[in-house]
């Protein structure tokens, strides 16, 4: 019987299997950041033990950092203390830190791939649910809690049970104005915010294979938004070409050896999945969310469901959600006014995202009623955007290009959406209060977000291209 991509990697990383199916899983790479690591470091200190394999850990500061004047000390005291704690801990335990001011600093899920640290066949963890992003390279990558961060620091291993496996096949060419963010928002709207809980997902099919590496990362990134532990895509030429030449990519002979291994990483014909879903790319239009979980997505030309379209059991949470959003059931989402546009986060802050937005807004101006923040995912993305003149395009359009970090994705720094305001966001979560207390988030692709920035309302980007 054939093996799945997941099983090929999983089996290779099992140190041993213990009671009732729990396995000791070896972890190749461990990313850490300032918010979920301090208690893990204190745990080690309390136990009086060291980090087992410091060279397999990479740290950055991203969640809490300001996105203007990063050269100045962080004003907010608790944020500053957390970032300082990371610095101290990394120095003490011998961990490489790409902290504030470092040319490689950025959102943890942006820098791993761009530095060539993320590679096919690896097991990768981070105290952050969007670690699933790295699965785009054909790696088993998933988010963990702080106790698990401590376990990996102490032993480079985790105790895990093997998840169920799901394959989602997306076939056919994409419609005009549709990008990878729309694919994943569409999938989540179909299977719901909990539809993949307990599963690890492999994305396959021609629509996925035709995506660039960065577009694939957007898809895997949001696997967690349907409850999946992680998402992955089999590596191919696109993957290899992306990795080649990056800072930590294997070189020369080592590269050839890796390529021959990486080329074996795909699901064999006949490999068994616990669940398989087929999606026709032709059915997908530009998407937007109207509610407070990522499963509440519709096409920009669609309407918010009417009460009749909602199952009786779901009605209370549906109504609570619309009340929070200040939207009526049944209304068309197009034309809904927008106050803020946030282009950023580990979902959509890479250079391709910025290029996509820049080529659309070139020569256009933002609407007067909107404030637009573009937050690059990393120092390297920022640098490249400036080299390519993208910053000029944004400046002329009235967009505010800021410095790298998680920013308004979770509003842990000053970048918060004010109460009651609507924000079209390229991030991944529209939970209540996610972008600020009582902020109203609508998730969309960078293109749809950019279109709203120009018109000041929810817009079908296809009418503008």
């Amino acid at each position: 019987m054939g093996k799945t991509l997941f099983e090929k990697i999983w089996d290779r990383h099992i140190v041993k299997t213990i009671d009732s199916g729990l396995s000791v899983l070896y972890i190749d790479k461990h990313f850490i950041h300032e918010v979920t690591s301090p208690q893990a470091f204190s745990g080690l200190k309390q136990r009086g033990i060291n980090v087992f394999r410091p060279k397999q850990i990479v740290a950055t500061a991203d969640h809490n950092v300001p996105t203007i004047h990063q050269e100045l000390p962080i004003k907010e005291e608790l944020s500053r203390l957390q970032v300082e704690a990371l610095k101290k801990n990394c120095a003490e335990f011998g961990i490489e830190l790409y902290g504030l001011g470092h040319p490689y600093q950025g959102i943890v899920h942006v820098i791993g791939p761009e530095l060539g640290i993320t590679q096919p066949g690896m097991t990768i963890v981070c105290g952050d649910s969007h670690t699933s992003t790295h699965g785009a390279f054909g790696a088993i990558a998933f988010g963990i809690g702080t106790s698990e961060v401590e376990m990996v620091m102490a032993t480079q291993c985790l105790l895990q049970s093997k998840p169920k496996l799901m394959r989602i096949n997306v076939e056919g060419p994409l419609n005009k104005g549709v990008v990878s963010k729309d694919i994943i928002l569409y999938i989540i709207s179909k299977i719901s915010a909990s539809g993949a809980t307990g599963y690890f997902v492999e994305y396959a099919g021609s629509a996925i294979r035709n995506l660039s590496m960065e577009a694939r990362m957007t898809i895997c990134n949001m696997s967690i938004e349907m409850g999946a532990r992680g998402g992955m895509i089999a590596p191919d030429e696109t993957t290899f070409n992306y990795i080649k030449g990056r800072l930590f990519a294997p070189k020369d002979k080592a590269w050839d050896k890796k390529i021959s291994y990486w080329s074996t990483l795909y699901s064999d014909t006949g490999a068994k999945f616990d669940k398989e879903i087929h999606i026709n790319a032709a059915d997908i239009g530009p998407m937007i969310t109207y509610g407070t979980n990522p499963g509440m997505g519709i096409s920009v030309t669609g309407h918010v469901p009417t009460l009749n379209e909602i199952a009786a059991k779901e009605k209370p949470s549906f109504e609570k959600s619309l009340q929070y959003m200040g939207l009526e059931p049944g209304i068309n989402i197009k034309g809904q006014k927008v106050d803020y546009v946030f282009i950023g986060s580990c979902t959509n802050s890479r250079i391709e995202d910025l290029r996509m937005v820049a080529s659309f807004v070139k020569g256009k101006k933002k609407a007067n009623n909107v404030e637009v923040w573009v937050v690059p995912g990393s120092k390297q993305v920022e640098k490249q955007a400036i080299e390519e003149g993208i910053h000029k395009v944004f400046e002329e359009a009235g967009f505010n290009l800021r410095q790298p970090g998680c920013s308004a994705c979770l509003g842990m720094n000053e970048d918060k959406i004010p109460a009651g305001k609507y924000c079209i966001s390229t991030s991944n979560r529209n939970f209540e209060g996610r972008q600020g207390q009582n902020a109203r988030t609508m998730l969309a692709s960078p293109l749809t977000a950019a279109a709203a920035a120009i018109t000041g309302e929810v817009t079908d980007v296809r009418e503008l291209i």
Partner: protein
Amino acid sequence: MSKSINNIKSTAVPVNIENVDTDQIIPARFLKATTREGFGQNLFRDWRFNSNGQPKNDFILNNPTYHGKILVAAKNFGCGSSREHAAWAIKDYGFDVVVSSFFADIFRNNALNNFLLPVTVSESFLQKLFDAIKKNPGTEIEVNLEKQTIALLPSGEQEKFDINNYKKTCLLNGYDDIDYLLNIKNEIEKFETSIN
């Protein structure tokens, strides 16, 4: 943090809202601490308090009628962010057990690692719990980890729940995964040489 769990008999607090994400359990702005303590005071912060810090009377945690060591929650509890702070906040507030028909994966692991017992029950049993508590907020629930049962008192109507055997032993005895993994470090080192 109290280590080890066995039998818990208590009244319960029902939070009958589906898809409760960890941003609701503990909003990001409270994640700036570098220790594990004190998160309980901000549990469900924005549902419990207005922006001026006044308690919201319509939220169940502010209703003195409901209290206890058991949180009864609706489907897909703990989805979203991996923040373990969510489990810390629930435990720190005083809960030892969370009951739901469906937990998000990372949350369940985080709970187990903090001696907060996640009990998955059927949709119908969950409904029974909600109904019983609504009818009589003094209803007691008994959760027996050793026997893997959850029972509605006084009728004793019960359901069995699943838990991994290893995890159960850990919870009963107050061990954690790190203790286990540190003990097999030699095997891990051997494994490393075998893959390189």
